[in-house]
């Protein structure tokens, strides 16, 4: 069974052959073609049978497109707004105004860092209370001026640190859940990478929730679940499967509205295409819900969350 590394290695080898072909004038084109066909079929096979854990790895892939990549590709005029007006400006959760298909929207976006240096600032996409409070400020602004809200979710979770705890991170998340339940503008959320628990949900209460095919959304990380429930780190893969955290599975469970197909290997392999798909999806959803009277929109949003959950009713009482 090939894994991602072997596939990448094979691809690199083919590239070397191509260069040889060019330089030395030895005709390797038949060899190259054969290998390319082979690689393509191996890749198709591998990505058609991804385990849930492998999807988790793609969702966290270092080359995965991040929120700012999508902001640049899908929106025009992104105008960032900074600060929660209380303690500071969170760099893991960005907010601002932008145009989507020419129309102004308010954007909430979780941003991971590409480099170690950038991650010092962005804390690997883990927002602190000031991030969630800044998001709430942006929501209030959106409501005041009737901007629809577009939320791009990509976080391992809210920042677990002393400073965040002292700032009542839990309370900040709770306040956002409350605000979004009643926000009087359309909200569309897209999970583009990791939907990490309360830290994701705190900008994820929406009228429509879409996910990229290899993104994940979960109450806890597979590592966390393995540690708490199995009490063994080695059970991470099993935990990933048990949690039902993949986009296709969540669609089956009826908790999200759409899965956007990624190219084999993940969104980074054909970014323009996936960014185009996501943009179309956001525009379409906003158009659909944008025509509803606000009372109907809020009632539908309320039903969506009020009915969330599965339980058994006892008949003998």
């Amino acid at each position: 069974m090939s894994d991602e590394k072997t596939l990448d290695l094979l691809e690199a080898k083919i590239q070397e052959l191509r260069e040889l072909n060019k330089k030395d004038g030895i005709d390797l084109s038949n060899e190259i073609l054969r290998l390319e066909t082979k690689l393509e079929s191996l890749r198709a096979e591998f990505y058609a049978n991804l385990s849930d854990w492998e999807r988790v790895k793609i969702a966290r892939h270092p080359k995965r497109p991040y929120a700012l990549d999508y902001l640049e590709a899908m929106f025009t005029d992104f105008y960032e707004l900074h600060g929660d007006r209380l303690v500071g400006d969170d760099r893991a959760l960005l907010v601002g105004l932008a145009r989507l298909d020419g129309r102004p929207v308010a954007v909430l976006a979780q941003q991971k860092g590409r480099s170690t240096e950038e991650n010092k600032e962005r804390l690997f996409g883990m927002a602190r209370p000031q991030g969630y409070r800044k998001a709430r400020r942006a929501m209030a602004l959106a409501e005041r001026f009737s901007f629809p809200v577009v939320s791009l979710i990509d976080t391992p979770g809210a920042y677990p640190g002393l400073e965040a705890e002292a700032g009542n991170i839990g309370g900040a998340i709770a306040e956002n859940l409350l605000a979004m339940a009643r926000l009087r503008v359309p909200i569309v959320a897209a999970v583009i990478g990791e939907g990490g628990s309360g830290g994701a949900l705190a900008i994820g209460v929406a009228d429509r929730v879409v996910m990229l095919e290899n993104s994940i959304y979960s109450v806890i990380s597979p590592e966390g679940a393995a540690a708490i429930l199995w009490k063994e780190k080695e059970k991470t893969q099993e935990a990933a499967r048990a949690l039902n955290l993949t986009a296709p599975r969540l669609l089956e469970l009826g908790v999200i509205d759409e899965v956007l197909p990624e190219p084999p290997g993940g969104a980074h392999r054909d970014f323009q295409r996936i960014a185009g798909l996501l943009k179309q999806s956001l525009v379409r959803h906003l158009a659909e819900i944008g025509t509803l009277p606000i009372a109907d929109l809020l009632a539908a949003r309320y039903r969506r969350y009020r009915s969330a959950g599965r339980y058994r009713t006892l008949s003998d009482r």
Partner: protein
Amino acid sequence: MAIFKDRNYLRVNLDKDADESLWMRCKACGELVFKRRVRENSNICPHCGEYFFLTARERIESLIDEGTFKDISKPIVDADPLGFQDTKPYLERVAEAQEATGLPSAIIIASAAVAGIPIVLGVMDFRFIGGSMGSVMGEQISYAMEEAIGRRCPFVLISSSGGARIQEGIFSLLQMAKTAAVRACLAEERLPFISIMTYPTTAGVQASIASLGDVIIAEKGAMIGFAGPRVIQSTISEQLPANYQTDSFAYQHGFIDRVANREDLRQELGKILGFFVEAR
């Protein structure tokens, strides 16, 4: 879900072996104390003041006017929406918790009165899978708030929970949004919601319904916070202060309105409810 460590509260089953030993040894001070004295003292050690765990029933008993309790919980129990199995199947875990606690789920919804004021009350029981919030608890809390609206009375929630019910995956996460959405209705109806945080009120419960009270009171010795100390130390390796995630930490940093001793909670609750009832 935070990891539970016996620290401020010690667990003791007062009913177990009641005939064989009328006495128990307090794990905090080591004194032999008379079990009945402990029970009469709201499960507080009469010798050193250590708080022992209260079951949901004991908690209710310690808070409300005598004879006013009525269990109005919805007749629902946990399903297994994901077919979840860790070291044992989820529903087996649920059955064991039901057996051990005698409760259908991790929360009881009751109608009752405190200081003569009718309320709808939700009380979590930590013994039931760490008081974790899954679909049943989310539905019970939502239903309780709707009942409060129907009865035009305040809603009181006593939290004792490690957080979300991991075994229900995304469905447990969504209970945070669900309870927050219904809480918004309660606010629109201008009915008060008093949230009482006890040991422990953490993670998914602290980051949703428990933090949304009009007034938030912590019981002395409560553990309050989002990410447990183990999570923080393993991911960030920060030194944590001695009072980390205690009632005093939450109070100092402004998460809660007040801290109350267990024996004063009933009076405290009556007092605060009185203001709201007079206002209407």
